[in-house]
């Protein structure tokens, strides 16, 4: 007999079944998840999984998401893991609950459990109604004791709800009225703006409160703790006017200055860094192959650039702090607040509410500390903090710039035999809590936090800068040299895919550069190097969709390019072909994508995520760069940080491979890297010259066309 399959890691933290599932009095089932809706449709997908395993209609499932008082702690909503981990956990919890209820009813009816079945919550005995349902049996069944071992799960061949496209549960409110944290009403609500410390090292020299008060045009309260300063009023317009007037009426000392080139990825070369080597030892013998190629690729600092500014509500009542946030993990937020405020986590509750898409770690958690700091000074009121647009751009943690150097030894046919990916990058995760980051306002408090020990996620969690740094192709020896640069001009943290986009861009551009030397078709060259059949299949399929074999000759101004990766080398696969024209700048003409995500819970939801990743990846590859000069970040609005607009969006076709025999693989981040790479390769194909530094702007294209 084989050992039963292990439970998901979530059950180690949340063993009790009633953290996951409870039966409501109104014929509903409450399903808990620690993962939260950030526009990716996860709460709907998890509801589908629960309905499936419980044999219930979807409308009987009520989701409780991101709630520290009753829901499970599943850390952060990140890394395309929500279906893989939380979905699997909910599935186990529901199967366990269903089994316990069936056991209880079999005992009561004195029958065998195999005589019983479930139809939309009603129990049947040998196909006939019993008069019992979940809600009648649940009160006499113990649903609190821990889940000990893997229950029997419904076989995927019997699925009716999972695998079917269903409409997102959260969208109706979002097209019609109040839907977001920003719209929440509470009694005694006061509005606040933070007059932000402009740099962690900056110290407040003076603030002209009287002048700010006059500009505000109404009654205003200042809250100050150390260098944390906020203005509070019942009238949001008053605090907004105060915040607009404040920067010129505050003097800060100790502002650092930076090199004018500090915002460029190339600035990272040779900086103070932590060094790691991952994979095969350095090349030995000295010439492991016939030919050696080296090329450098880069991506600058990029912004999450949420459509709405960060916001949070907090209230202090009878010694208990309650926080509402649009962050990605309520349990870690509660712990980070407790650590920063010197409180017991048991005295804090945190609830998730919808926010604008974040695509990673933006200012949402930081706004929660802002609101909490003010709430502690003003008990009995609900404090609503909203950042201003320029705060959002200036103070969100950025996606780190990355410089990637590839050194490849090949055989006589230009097939790689020894591959080194060398990376210079800032840290990719500085979330408050377990990853060791601080909430933003912590550095303005009288008791400064200890210096951070900067570390990327370990390789077994997909790495940070090293994410997707190992090619998926069959290469006899490969290694990663990682230089984690520790002193940067800006704060950096997780942005959709971490290092995956720049690494896939570099690797897939290099594949084309090798294919060109081998005088081979880039698609055929890749297929020869791939033994992974799922990767082979998506490449072949996307080539059919895009009519790849009919692509034009190089250097005509019209280009076709291909890019492929499996996210984290273990999550969903995506292959992308981009068709574009280059005149002075790039005009996208068409994008095709084929993705393999195993069993897909909500196909339309997955397609929506993949399409969004394609457009965001294209925007980053073509346009995005945070402007940094000696005075720091200068990107403070949509003019100084442009993104792709409606008139620049090409048709996009996405096809999902029917692979339901394979386990579900997260799709949220799989399409960005392949899209950026396909754009890089298509531009090279169109021009007959390669641009290796993102974004692929008009200036860089002009420079690539100039003779050396």
């Amino acid at each position, binding site marked *: 007999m084989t050992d039963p399959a292990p439970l998901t890691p979530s059950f180690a933290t949340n063993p009790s079944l009633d953290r996951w599932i409870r039966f409501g009095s109104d014929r509903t089932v409450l399903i808990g998840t620690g993962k939260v809706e950030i*526009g990716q449709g996860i709460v709907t997908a998890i509801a589908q999984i629960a309905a499936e395993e419980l044999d219930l209609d979807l409308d009987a499932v009520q989701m409780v998401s991101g709630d520290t008082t009753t829901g499970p702690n599943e850390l952060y909503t990140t890394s395309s893991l929500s279906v893989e981990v939380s979905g699997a956990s909910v599935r186990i919890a529901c199967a366990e609950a269903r089994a316990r209820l069936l056991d209880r009813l079999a005992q009561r009816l004195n029958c065998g459990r195999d005589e019983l079945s479930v139809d939309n919550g009603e129990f049947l005995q040998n196909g006939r109604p019993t008069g019992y349902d979940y809600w009648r049996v649940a009160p006499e069944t113990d649903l609190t004791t821990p889940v000990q071992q893997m229950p029997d799960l419904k076989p995927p061949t019997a699925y009716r709800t999972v695998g079917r496209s269903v409409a997102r549960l959260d969208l*109706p409110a979002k097209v019609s009225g109040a*839907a977001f944290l920003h719209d929440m009403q509470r009694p005694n609500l006061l509005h606040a703006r933070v007059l932000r410390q402009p740099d962690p090292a900056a110290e407040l020299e003076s603030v002209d409160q009287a002048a700010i008060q006059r500009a505000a045009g*109404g009654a205003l309260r200042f809250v100050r703790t150390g260098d944390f300063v906020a203005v509070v009023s019942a009238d949001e*317009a008053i605090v907004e006017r105060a915040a607009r007037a404040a920067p010129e009426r505050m003097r800060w000392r100790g502002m650092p200055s930076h090199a004018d080139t500090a915002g460029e990825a190339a600035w990272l070369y040779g900086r103070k860094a932590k060094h790691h080597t991952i994979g095969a030892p350095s090349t030995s013998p000295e010439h492991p192959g016939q030919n050696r190629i080296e090329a450098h690729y880069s991506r600058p600092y990029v912004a999450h650039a949420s*459509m709405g500014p960060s916001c949070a509500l907090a209230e202090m009542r009878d010694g208990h702090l309650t926080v509402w946030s649009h962050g990605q993990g309520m349990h870690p937020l509660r712990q980070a607040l407790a650590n920063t405020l010197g409180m017991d986590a048991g005295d804090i509750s945190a609830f998730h509410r919808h926010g604008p898409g974040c695509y990673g770690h933006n200012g949402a958690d930081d706004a929660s500390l802002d609101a909490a700091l003010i709430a502690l000074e003003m008990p009995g009121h609900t404090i609503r903090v909203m950042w201003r*647009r320029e705060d959002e751009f200036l103070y969100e943690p950025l996606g780190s710039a990355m410089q990637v150097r590839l050194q490849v030894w090949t055989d006589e046919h230009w097939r790689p035999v020894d591959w080194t990916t060398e990376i210079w990058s800032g840290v990719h995760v500085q979330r408050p809590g377990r990853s060791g980051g601080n909430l933003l306002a912590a550095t303005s408090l009288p008791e400064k936090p200890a210096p951070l020990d900067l570390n990327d996620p370990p390789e077994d969690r997909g790495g940070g800068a090293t994410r997707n740094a190992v090619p998926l192709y069959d290469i006899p020896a490969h290694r990663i040299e990682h230089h984690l640069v520790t002193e940067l001009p800006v704060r950096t943290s997780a942005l959709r895919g971490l290092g995956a986009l720049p690494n896939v861009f570099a690797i897939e551009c290099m594949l084309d550069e090798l294919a060109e030397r081998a005088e081979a078709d880039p698609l055929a060259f890749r297929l020869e190097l791939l033994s992974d059949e799922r990767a082979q299949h998506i490449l072949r399929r996307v080539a059919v969709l895009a009519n790849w074999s009919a692509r034009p000759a190089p250097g005509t101004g019209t280009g076709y390019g291909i890019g492929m990766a499996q996210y984290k080398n273990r999550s969903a696969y995506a292959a992308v072909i981009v068709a574009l024209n280059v005149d002075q700048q790039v005009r996208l003409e068409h994008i095709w994508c084929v993705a393999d995500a195993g069993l897909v819970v909500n196909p339309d939801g997955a397609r929506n995520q993949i399409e969004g990743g394609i457009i965001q990846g294209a925007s980053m590859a073509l346009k995005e760069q945070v402007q940094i000069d000696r005075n720091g970040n200068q990107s403070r*609005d*949509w003019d100084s940080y442009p993104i792709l607009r409606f008139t620049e969006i090409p048709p996009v076709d996405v096809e999902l491979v029917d692979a339901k025999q394979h386990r579900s693989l997260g799709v949220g981040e799989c399409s960005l890297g392949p899209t950026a790479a396909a754009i890089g390769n298509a531009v090279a194909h169109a021009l007959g010259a390669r641009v290796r530094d993102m974004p692929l702007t008009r200036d860089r294209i002009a420079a690539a066309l100039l003779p050396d």
Partner: protein
Amino acid sequence: MLELDLHVNGRTARATCHQDDTLLHVLRNHLDLKGTRFGCGLEQCGACTVLIDGVPRYACTTLASEVASAHVTTVEGLSNQTDGHMHPIQEAFLEEQAGQCGYCLAGMIVRVKALLDDNPAPSRTDIAAALDGNLCRCGTHLRILRAVERAARALGARGDI
């Protein structure tokens, strides 16, 4: 302070506000119409788009006092005020599942109302041009374009425009 009678979504509401208060602020904080969203305050993103006498405007920079004699329409005004049914444009957005985070949608839907009132059968190029001032960060553009095409067909079939 000013006493303003604002005509919003077919009703008249009195608001006491400061002469510098924006229409967005008054809609959200005085009239409890939270569907119109703050995105940038700079006329750059379109999340706050409303109709002033049928013309799309940025509520984030329009002063409430400027529009006291005008008719203002917000996303809440598109739904049927008596039975609560959504407008065909909103229904089309849901049918196409044209949303990810959804923060930009209310502004888009309001702008599309003005577009379809003006041009009942727009081409995809017309739609993209009309929406070019509305930003979407999630990359839902293609679904939004399809939703507008669907809405145009639905409204055309209904004979509304």
